[in-house]
């Protein structure tokens, strides 16, 4: 099955960045299905994964409509290769342990909540509607993951050690959430997507509040990873896509 290449205008690129981050993070969370430490958490992680999958579907559908080439959400999800994915790198890092999964969920949700709140006022009516729904979901993700960050950070020696390790690994990937390139500037200027600068203050407040309660020191703002939003990915994304895309690529006409 042939790979497709989306014509990337600032808007389709902006939509793909959001959709790919949601889809790839959703897939990582879904890897816990049947493996979480307890049944209740298995359901909680699957619920978050399904929220993100729903967001990804709506964003891909919108991106396909904007592109106007007759493609579907499935084409965008299943028929692009790793270099065409535009997700932030944090989303594609391997599942890790429970502390890593929870902290990643918290960091992404702490950004997503103010981001969607700002996007709810977008001049793009479809995007505004997607944002209004995603905002409520993100609020719960912040709450659920945040409460776990507090309990693991301020828990046993073992849980704290794992949380500190996860923080060391993940923090350099937070810079990508606030990057702005020319494509971003174009959609920001059009009032379609918010300026990340708007998201910074509420993000800081959420991180500081939860870290203070968890007894975690916020790492210094040093060198940050970059590249996912332009298609330069870690070696992990290809493996993830191989699993995720195998079925529709092998059997393009398969239906439920």
């Amino acid at each position: 099955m042939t790979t497709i290449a989306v014509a990337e205008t600032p808007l389709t690129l902006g939509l793909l960045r959001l959709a790919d981050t949601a889809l790839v993070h959703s897939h990582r969370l879904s890897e816990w299905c049947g493996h979480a430490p307890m049944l209740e958490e298995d359901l909680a992680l699957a619920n978050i994964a399904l929220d993100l999958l729903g967001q990804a579907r709506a964003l891909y559908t919108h991106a396909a409509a904007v592109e106007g080439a007759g493609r579907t959400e499935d084409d965008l999800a299943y028929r692009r290769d790793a270099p065409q994915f535009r997700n932030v790198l944090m989303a594609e890092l391997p599942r890790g342990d429970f502390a890593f999964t929870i902290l990643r969920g918290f960091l992404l949700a702490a950004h997503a909540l103010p981001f969607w709140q700002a996007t709810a006022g977008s001049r793009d009516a479809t995007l505004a509607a997607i944002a209004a729904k995603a905002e409520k979901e993100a609020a719960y993700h912040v709450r659920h993951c945040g409460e776990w960050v507090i309990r693991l950070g301020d828990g046993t020696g073992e849980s704290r050690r794992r949380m500190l390790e996860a923080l060391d690994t993940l923090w350099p990937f937070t810079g990508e959430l606030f990057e702005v390139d020319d494509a971003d500037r174009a959609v920001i200027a059009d009032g379609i997507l918010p300026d990340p600068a708007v998201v910074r203050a509420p993000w800081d407040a959420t991180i500081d509040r939860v870290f203070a309660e968890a007894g975690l020191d916020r790492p210094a703002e040093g060198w940050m990873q970059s590249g996912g939003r332009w298609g330069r990915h870690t070696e992990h994304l290809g493996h993830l896509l191989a699993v995720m895309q195998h079925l529709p690529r092998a059997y393009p006409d398969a239906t439920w």
Partner: protein
Amino acid sequence: MSETPMPLWEVFIRARTGLAHRHVGSVHAADAEMALQAARDTYTRRGEGLSIWVVPAAAITASDPADKDMLFEPTASKPYRHPTFYTVPEEVGHM
């Protein structure tokens, strides 16, 4: 790996305004806040709820099944307590 089992919480959900909270099951959680989230994630996935209560299972005092003759048997011979001796007009609906 040694694991301390987490406390058990009984979950009550009110499906609609005006209805009572109804027992739906139980969850394991370390504390009340996490129990509330576990209850939300486990029992309200299909839009079942408007309000959730969680109660530590240990806080519930239960009757002894062995006492059932003493507690419940005497009511069996008091059918006059059932409102079955009246005809309720159709229009009344559920009382």
